[in-house]
């Protein structure tokens, strides 16, 4: 330790190189991540191509594509408007179901449950979050769909054997629940304990503290969970197409009627198709990306305006 000033030149050179090395390593990593923009460029180029006059299978009308209420590959009618509405309905309805349950579960796990129970629930939720979507799809076909058929019989409405908008919503709620919950748990755990202590010191009850202090402080993280959950709901293809029924026109507002989402549209028969029917799926993908972007902005807007009176 004494010689550190005398011998400092050599290690310094080494350190300079070390810094330089890591600096370039970070730069290369950042470059690779930002190169992912190529994916967007590729999808955009492929998705826009059917609407250009130079398109090899005949130019498509972008207005009728965006406002169309019928999607029939066999007649080459591609209208995406009702699919957008269907996707929004199923996505937000499942968020509406899953979000409150998730947040309250997270609050319970972190703040209320005894340690072993909380730990057990948290592990269970983490396992649920990592189950592949096709497994959820099989579950939906085997359990949710017959359940809805029974329900429909009780209410005396006719369904397509249980495949319905309701089945999609229930399935998506179950699928996004663990995602939102596990992120909410992390967010609630990160809340500064001093804030809670201050709240108790001011005479607030445990429930008051949990709702007004803890949830409000964890707001950012919880809404990040909601965005990820909604992203999963919008992006889920495999499981949804197993229970949606893929209606050719719409939009669908009846819970017991079949529906069609953007992802199930992109997936159905993708591997067997060519030409326009193949390329137009990229256009649907582009629209889906737009829908997700707008939805995320909307959630951010809600986040920034919620609980303002407490902050």
């Amino acid at each position: 330790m004494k010689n550190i000033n005398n011998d400092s030149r050599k290690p310094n050179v080494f350190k300079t190189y070390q810094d330089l090395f890591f600096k370039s390593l970070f730069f290369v990593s950042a470059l690779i991540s930002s190169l992912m923009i190529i994916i967007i460029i590729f999808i955009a180029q492929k998705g826009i191509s059917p609407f250009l006059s130079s398109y090899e299978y005949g130019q498509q009308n972008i207005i009728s594509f965006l406002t169309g209420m019928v999607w029939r590959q066999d007649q080459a009618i591609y209208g995406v408007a009702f699919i957008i509405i269907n996707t929004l309905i199923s996505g937000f309805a499942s968020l509406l179901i899953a979000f409150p349950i998730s947040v309250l579960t997270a609050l319970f796990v972190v703040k209320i449950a005894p340690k072993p129970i909380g730990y057990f629930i948290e592990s269970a939720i983490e396992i649920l979050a990592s189950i592949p979507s096709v497994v959820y799809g099989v579950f939906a076909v085997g359990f949710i769909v017959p359940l809805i058929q029974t329900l429909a019989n009780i209410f005396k409405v006719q369904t397509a054997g249980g495949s319905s908008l309701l089945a999609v919503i229930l399935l998506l709620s179950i699928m996004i629940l663990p995602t939102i919950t596990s992120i909410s748990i992390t967010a609630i755990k990160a809340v500064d304990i001093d804030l809670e202590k201050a709240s108790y010191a001011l005479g607030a009850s445990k429930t008051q503290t949990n709702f007004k202090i803890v949830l409000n402080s964890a707001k950012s993280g919880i809404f990040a969970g909601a965005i990820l959950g909604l992203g999963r709901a919008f992006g889920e293809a495999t499981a949804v197409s197993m229970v949606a029924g893929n209606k050719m026109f719409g939009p669908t507002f009846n819970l017991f009627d079949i529906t069609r989402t953007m992802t199930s549209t992109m997936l159905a028969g993708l591997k067997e198709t060519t030409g326009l029917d193949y390329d137009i799926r990229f256009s649907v993908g582009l629209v889906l990306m737009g829908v997700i972007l707008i939805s995320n902005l909307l959630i951010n807007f809600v986040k920034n305006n919620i609980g303002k009176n407490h902050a």
Partner: protein
Amino acid sequence: MKFFRLMVVGLILSLGLVGCATTETPVEETKSVTGTINVYTRDASSGTRGAFEEFIELKDKLTVTAIEVTGNGDMAVKVGEDLNGIGYVSLTTDFAANGITPLSYKGVEATEENVINKSYELARPFEFVTRASGDFASEDQELVTLAFADFLMNSVEGREVVFAAGGIVDVDAGTAWETLKANHPVLSKDLSAVVLKTGGSTSVEKTLKAALEAFQALTGVQFEMNHTGSSDGFKRTLGSEKDSANAVDIGFASRYFKAEETVNLGAATGVYCMDAIVVVVNDENTLLTDSDKELVFNIFSGAVSTWEEVAK
């Protein structure tokens, strides 16, 4: 704690309600089929749908209310769950296990014999095509591919396993492999390093795998199956993807090759077995047992939309 007690009480109460719901309003067991017909179809790029729509001249005329399913098994499950459903599956489907009843067509029952003797009309071919002569990875690869094509098409042994796997073919009309083998001297070599690559229709997979395994047992040739859909059968042997990483030695289609798919360029091509499409309804639907082109067309085009109209 009060809150929790309340919640527990609420839970018990709601459970009680659920109990009431199931005991007081039992699900009615209706045997007669009434109400709208739920038409099930495959997605527009499915080979089965293509064949079905060709058979009954339904192209572009399918009712807009049809429900799209994701595959043959999915179709069987969905119609089996829906009393009001009607759909179409391949003959190799297990009807009883899925709770569906096959309809006869023009009074002819959908059986293997009737498909081979061509009296059952809703049938389609399983076709194959190889790469062009001289366009294989090696000369041995080409000779082995042609030997397999011969085995698949003409040998009794090949036809037997294809038949056992659900393909419809006249086994007795084949030639013994011992005789055919003489035409393929390449088979006397050590072929354990040769890998036969197949692709195309997914419908052929079951029958093809059986044939490939039988061929492997006889010759020691390895195989690799990568099936994605009928249109890739031509594409990956002679078409746009013939030199890509997806390229295969033999491509398959579960339909007749189209005119623009120039399969005569391939070293060998042909139909190795037939597959039949069967219109199916739910097990409990006793209204319909026979069908014909007009009835099937009317139902699938939406001209007839309720079971009452069918009953008339």
